[in-house]
């Protein structure tokens, strides 16, 4: 079976998008043959030039253009080149694609995504409820919008604290003065509200997984980040099997009938055997190829499920496998660049 799969996030740079990892996974599936259509937001995204993975690329209007721009462009690509499936992997794309997934489906473009209700679960104010429901903890946290509330929150939580913006930026403050200055800094740049959070000790561990929308898992792998870059991106990692974290992911899939890929970010205190939920990302992480490398091809399973092929039952994976990123380079001439610039497609 030949399937044209559009993948976004092909910006394989120092803060990489998840697209190339997903594309590599799809190409490794043996029971169907994927052709990768790259969707890029900038003519300089490296994936456009990696023609051994991405056969053809299209420039996309930003999702902020809404239906008129974004969805129409997908339909244009479907009509003029072909697209059987769209795997959006960037946060900004998800709301738009989720909202119009029925229209895409009607026009022959399948997707495999959570509902909007499910998507909203990942917001910071719902995390506590989720953590409770799946048997793990979250660091104590308070939402504040004034100095008074900030001081109160610090008294309640106890120093040191993390001072975080609602979407971006997080600083560790050891004194109240420090907390106030981070508070001001974040407010000046990103506005309210500010989240004050307990600092929990432990190691950063993550899960990549997907739910089938009916309460079952399409594959799941747990990892620990061993070495991260200055931007906080994984460079070396190792597969692990933390029972508590994995069973929390399993429960998340069951309890919420989660559909599609997700990443669970946790801090695990192995001494106390506590798992804290930090974030849920409703998409593949940038390192998702790691799971394929240890035999759990989650992306391929999503395709199988979507096209009614037999889904592989990945029950296990080996712990102690190593993930190593490395840099590479290529030389090409300007033709692809010119084409993508002038025509919007390579």
């Amino acid at each position, binding site marked *: 079976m030949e399937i044209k799969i559009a993948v976004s996030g092909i910006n394989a740079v120092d803060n990489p998008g998840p697209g190339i990892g997903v594309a590599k996974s799809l190409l490794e599936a043996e029971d169907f043959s994927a052709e990768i259509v790259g969707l890029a937001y900038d003519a300089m995204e490296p994936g456009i030039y990696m023609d051994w993975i991405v056969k053809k690329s299209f420039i996309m209007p930003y999702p902020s253009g809404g239906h008129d721009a974004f969805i129409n462009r997908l339909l244009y690509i479907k009509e003029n080149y072909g697209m059987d499936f769209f795997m959006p992997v960037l946060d900004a794309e998800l709301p738009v694609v989720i909202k119009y997934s029925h229209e895409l489906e009607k026009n022959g473009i399948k997707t495999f995504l959570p509902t909007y209700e499910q998507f909203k679960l990942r917001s910071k104010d719902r995390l506590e409820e989720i953590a409770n429901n799946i048997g793990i903890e979250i660091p104590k946290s308070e939402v504040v919008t004034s100095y008074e509330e900030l001081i109160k929150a610090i008294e309640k939580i106890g120093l040191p604290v993390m001072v975080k913006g609602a979407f971006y930026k997080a600083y560790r403050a050891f004194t109240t003065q420090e907390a106030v200055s981070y508070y001001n800094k974040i407010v000046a740049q990103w506005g309210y509200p500010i989240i004050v959070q307990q600092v929990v000790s432990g190691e950063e561990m993550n899960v990549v997984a997907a739910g089938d929308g009916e309460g079952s898992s399409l594959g799941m792998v747990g990892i620990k980040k061993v070495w991260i870059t200055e931007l906080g991106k994984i460079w070396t990692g190792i597969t692990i099997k933390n029972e508590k974290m994995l069973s929390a992911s399993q429960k998340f899939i069951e309890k919420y009938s989660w559909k599609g890929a997700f990443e669970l970010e946790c801090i695990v205190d192995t001494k106390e055997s506590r798992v804290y939920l930090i974030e849920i990302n409703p998409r593949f992480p940038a390192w998702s190829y790691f799971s394929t490398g240890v035999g759990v091809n989650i992306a391929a399973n999503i395709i199988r499920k979507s096209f009614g092929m037999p889904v592989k039952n990945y029950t296990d994976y080996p712990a102690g496998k190593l993930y190593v990123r490395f840099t590479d380079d290529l030389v090409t001439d*300007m033709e692809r*660049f*010119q084409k993508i*610039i*002038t*025509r919007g497609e390579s």
Partner: protein
Amino acid sequence: MDRIKQLAINDEGFVFDPLTGDSFTVNQTGLFILKKLKEGKTEEEILQEITGEFEVSQEEAERDLIDFIEKLRSYRLI
């Protein structure tokens, strides 16, 4: 006008400046004007050719040509 002579211009409207490594895109009218400038034509000559080639009034073409040349200047291409 020296820099303009060195520009690599393709017919789809992609322009590359080997001197600086900058790239540009132009539309068909812009391409037309660039090519004429490259040939060393004066603004008056170009204006005449535009009105000869395209469906446009003298006044509009002149206004646009001035604007386009200002834009080239802002890019230091002339």
